[in-house]
């Protein structure tokens, strides 16, 4: 078994109103950053997970997303796992 750092990105589903993204977009525009077409705000969650393979770690976290970490009505998620240091004890 190894320890993996799993990065989870939870983002508002496409088409869903994202008032935070809109407010940030507005602020960027007022600073002169006209090249920004859209801003969407989500959240990043980092988990240290012990598993046999990165795929196993990722699948475990995807299961957690469906159950708790993301709301399927309003949010999409993306999971990436990378090995973290030596083997877990």
């Amino acid at each position: 078994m190894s320890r993996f750092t799993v990065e989870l990105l939870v983002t508002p589903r496409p088409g869903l109103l994202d008032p935070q993204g809109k407010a940030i977009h507005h602020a960027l525009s007022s600073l002169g950053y006209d090249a920004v077409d859209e801003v969407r705000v989500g959240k990043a969650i980092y988990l240290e997970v012990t598993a046999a393979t990165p795929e196993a770690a990722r699948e475990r976290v995807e299961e957690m997303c469906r159950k708790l970490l993301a709301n399927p009505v309003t949010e999409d998620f993306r999971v990436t796992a990378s090995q973290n240091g030596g083997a877990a004890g």
Partner: protein
Amino acid sequence: MNVAIITFPGSNCDQDCHRSVDVAGGSPSYVWHRETSLGGADAVIVPGGFAHGDYLRPGAIARFSPIMDAVIDFARGGGLVVGICNGFQVLCEAGLLPGALLRNESLRFQSHDCRMRVERADTVYTSEYREGQVIRMPLSHADGNYYADPETLAELEDGGRVVFRYCDAGGAVSDAANPNGSLNNIGGIVNERGNVLGMMPHPDRAFDPALGSVDGLPLFTSLVGALARAEVA
């Protein structure tokens, strides 16, 4: 006519709900979220507040509190369950009501009186109102922006499951009267069977003239009345 009021760490309207049920003639009791039984209650209220600090998403962690299995079983069996404000968010997270409550469109915490039109006076929760009646009560939330996908929204509308809609003093439903960006000005809905109600505004803060409005009281007298009739039957 025992009404269980679920208290989570962070609930702050449990006492308001307790008093509302009491004034309406019911018998309220508190049930701590770590309990696993509703103790034979005839109805359940999931009150407002910030259960588990609203961490992750409002209601997301509360939905897995030990008592929630009993609440879900009770609701699936046809038991009467009301979620007010944070309670509405908990019931959506638990899958007892469709949709979700997003951050207010204004990004501001809204805390003021609102008006709603009673769209349905034939539910167990609204029988003491008149259809089309305009009622006034406080709202107090950061995440009250009701959202559902287009199919779900059509189901709610076609099925007459929108119970309360934000409106102005004359009863007109408009963007200006929408405090949080909710789709179709939705302030409260019921599930398909009609036994689970969720609403963002606070009837539990509008049951006594000293509070500035008594427009919330009929919700509790409707509920207590329905339980009394069930007891006779």
